[in-house]
C-alpha cells in the first residue's frame, strides 16, 4: 500500500515537472497574444502602472485604496490572483511584510517569486529615509528596519519608481516597449510640471510645519521643504496615550503648528480629543489612490494632500 502511494507521488511529481517545463516554454509566434496580467500590492502602484501601460495590460491591486496596506489579510483568493500574475509589483521596505510573503508562497507561481523576472520591488530604485543606523527592536514600535516605506508620496521618487516599472514592462512585453517608454516620459513631464506648481502653492499657503498621525508624510515633507512638528501615535503602530496627546497639544501650541494631517483609515478617537482640548481640526487625507473618491489617480492623490495643506492656512 505504502509502495503504491509513493509510486503515485513520484508519478505526480513527474507529471508536475513536465507540466512546469511545458508551461515555461515561450508561445510560438502564431499563438494569439494574451494581455499580460500585472498585480500590484497597493492601489497607488496600480495607478502608476496604469499610467505607463494604458489599456495594453490588465492591472489589478491587492489592496483597495481604502485599506491600510500595512494590514491586509493574506486571503487565499489573493493567492489565486497571484497565481495568474505575470508580474508582481510591490512597494517594498517591509510595507507589505505582514501579509505578502504568504500570498507569494501560496500562489504556486514560480514567475513572481522574489528575485525572479516577474517580481519588482520599487523600493530598490529609490533612496530611503529614516533607515535605522543603530540596532532597533520593537521597543521603538512597529519600526521598518530598511527605512520609511511611504516614499510614493514624494512625486520625484514616484518618477523613479515609474521608470523601474516602465523598464520592467518593456522587458516582459518588448513588442510594446516604445509605447511604455513614451507613456513614462509623458507622465514624468506632467508630474514634474505639477510638482513645481505644488511647491509654489505650498509656499504660498505659508504652512511650514505639519503634525501627522503616522510617519506617512515624511517623504512628502522632505520634498516640499516642510517640517514635522510631531507624530500623534506614540511609536509606529502604537496608539497615543492621553499623556502623549497632551504633549503633542503643548508642542502644537508652542510651535504654532496647527496643520494636522492623517491618513483617512486611522481611527479618529484621538482627533476628537485634539478638537476638545485645543480646538485643533484634523484633516483626514488620502495617502493611497482610491482612499477617497476624489483621489482617482496619482496626480489627484498628491493634489488632495496639497489642498489639505492649503485648507490649513485658510483656517
Amino acid at each position: 500500500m505504502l509502495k503504491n502511494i509513493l509510486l503515485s507521488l513520484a508519478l505526480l511529481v513527474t507529471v508536475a515537472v513536465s507540466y512546469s517545463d511545458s508551461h515555461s516554454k515561450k508561445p510560438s509566434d502564431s499563438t494569439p497574444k494574451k494581455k499580460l496580467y500585472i498585480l500590484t500590492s497597493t492601489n497607488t502602484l496600480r495607478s502608476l502602472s496604469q499610467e505607463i501601460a494604458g489599456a495594453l495590460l490588465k492591472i489589478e491591486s491587492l489592496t483597495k485604496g481604502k485599506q491600510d496596506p500595512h494590514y491586509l489579510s493574506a486571503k487565499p483568493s489573493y493567492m489565486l490572483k497571484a497565481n495568474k500574475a505575470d508580474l508582481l509589483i510591490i512597494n517594498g521596505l517591509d510595507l507589505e511584510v505582514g501579509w505578502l510573503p504568504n500570498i507569494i508562497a501560496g500562489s504556486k507561481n514560480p514567475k513572481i517569486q522574489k528575485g525572479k523576472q516577474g517580481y519588482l520591488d520599487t523600493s530598490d530604485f529609490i533612496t530611503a529615509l529614516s533607515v535605522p543606523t543603530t540596532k532597533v527592536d520593537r521597543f521603538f514600535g512597529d519600526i521598518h528596519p530598511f527605512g520609511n516605506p511611504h516614499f510614493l508620496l514624494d512625486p520625484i521618487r514616484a518618477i523613479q519608481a515609474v521608470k523601474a516599472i516602465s523598464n520592467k514592462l518593456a522587458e516582459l512585453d518588448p513588442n510594446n516597449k516604445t509605447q511604455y517608454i513614451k507613456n513614462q516620459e509623458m507622465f514624468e513631464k506632467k508630474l514634474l510640471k505639477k510638482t513645481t506648481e505644488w511647491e509654489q502653492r505650498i509656499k504660498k499657503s505659508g504652512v511650514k510645519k505639519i503634525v501627522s498621525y503616522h510617519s506617512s508624510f515624511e517623504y512628502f515633507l522632505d520634498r516640499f521643504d516642510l517640517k514635522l512638528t510631531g507624530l500623534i501615535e506614540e511609536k509606529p503602530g502604537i496608539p497615543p496615550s492621553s499623556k502623549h496627546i497632551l504633549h503633542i497639544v503643548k508642542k502644537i501650541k508652542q510651535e504654532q503648528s496647527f496643520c494636522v494631517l492623517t491618513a483617512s483609515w486611522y481611527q479618529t478617537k484621538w482627533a476628537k480629543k485634539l478638537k476638545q482640548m485645543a480646538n485643533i481640526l484634523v484633516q483626514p487625507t488620502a495617502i493611497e489612490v482610491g482612499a477617497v473618491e476624489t483621489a482617482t489617480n496619482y496626480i489627484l492623490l498628491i493634489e488632495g494632500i496639497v489642498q489639505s495643506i492649503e485648507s490649513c492656512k485658510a483656517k
Partner: protein
Amino acid sequence: MKLLNSLILFLLTVNYALAVPTKTNPDISLNILLLGQKSFQDKPSEKESHKGSAHSHEGHQHQSTDGVSVQEVELYFKSNIDPYWTGNISLGLAQHGSHFDLDLETAYIDSLFIPNFTLRAGKFYTFFGRHNDLHSHYYPFIDPPLINQKLFGFHGLNGVGASIAYLSPLPWYSEAVIQTIKEEHYRGILFLKNLWDLTDQSTLELDLTYARTIKELSKPNSFSLVSINNITNYINQIDLWKDLYNLSLTWKWQDGNNINSAVWTTELVYSNGKLSKQSTKPPRGLALKNLKPTKNAASLNSYIQFQLLKNWWLQGRAEVILDSKWKQIELQKYSTLLAWTATEYSAVRLQYDMIKINADWSYAIALQTNMSLGAHPAHLY
C-alpha cells in the same frame, strides 16, 4: 543532565540566531507562550476517584499542570534556499512536569519552481481540518480541540514524509493536497480546501479531509508529553484510529482595516476502525478520563471569534464527542476566551472551560501570554 544539554543547545541556537543579523540570514522569530492555570472539579464518583489516582500509563508519569508553566518556546527559521526551494524549521522547547523537552517540530522544504504545484518533504504538520497544521501560538484558543487531542496526542498529526499540493484553475480557491507521513504509524492524508469570497470583506471556506493509517508499526515512536489543560491527573490512551474524516466550514468577516472581525468555524470529525496494536502516545492537554479507544467516534466542535475593537477579542467554543453509535455524548466542553492584543507581537488571553465527562463536571481557568520576538511573521488568514 539531559535537561541541561537541551537548554544549553537551545540557548546557543537562539543566541546565534538573534545575534548575527545579516541580509542573508533567514527570517528568525522566537515565540514564547507562558501559562498559568487552575482547575476545579465537582465531587467525582467513587469509581472515577479511584481511577483518577492512577498516574502511570505505559511508563509515562503524569502530573497536574495547575500552576505556572512555560507552555512552549518556539524558535522559527524561514528562508529561500535557492531559486527552487524554500526551507522552514521550528524548534519547540516545552515544559514537561518539572523539566523541559526540546523538540524538532518542523523541518521541511517546499518547492518554488513548479506552476500550480508545491512539493514538500521533511517533518511537518499535516493538513487535517482547520487546526492540525497550526503552531501553538496561532491556536484560536489556548488548547486544541478535544478531538485533535484525543486522536493525535501532543504533537498533532506530525511526522516525516512528503506531500504534493495542487492549486486548481477553478474560479474560486481550490487546493488539493496529498500527504504521506511516518509518525506513530504510516499515515496517508487527502485534503481539499475551498474558499469563496462572498463579499470584499467576507469569505466561506469548506475543507474536507480523509486520513488513513496505511501501515501499522509494531514499535511505535515514543513521544514526550506536556499537558496544557490537565483537569485531572488521569491520562488515558488516545484513539488508535484507522480512518478519519473531517468536514469543516468557516465563515469569516473582516472590515477593511482590521479593526473589527468575526469568525465562525464548525468542524465534524468521524473516526472509523481501530488499530490492533497499542499506542504509547499520550494525549495533549485535557485528560480524557474514562474514554476508551473506540472503534468509531464522532465529534462536533464549533467556535466563534469576535474582534470587538482593534485590540480586544471575545470568543466562545462548544465541543462534543459522541460514542461509537452516535447516541450518547461522552464528553462535552464549553470555553470562553477574552484576549487583549497590545500589538501584533503580544497578547494576553484568559480562558474559562467547563468540561463534562460522563456525569462529572470540571472547570478550569487559564491565563496565557503570547509574545513574539524577531522577524515580523506574515499573518495567516
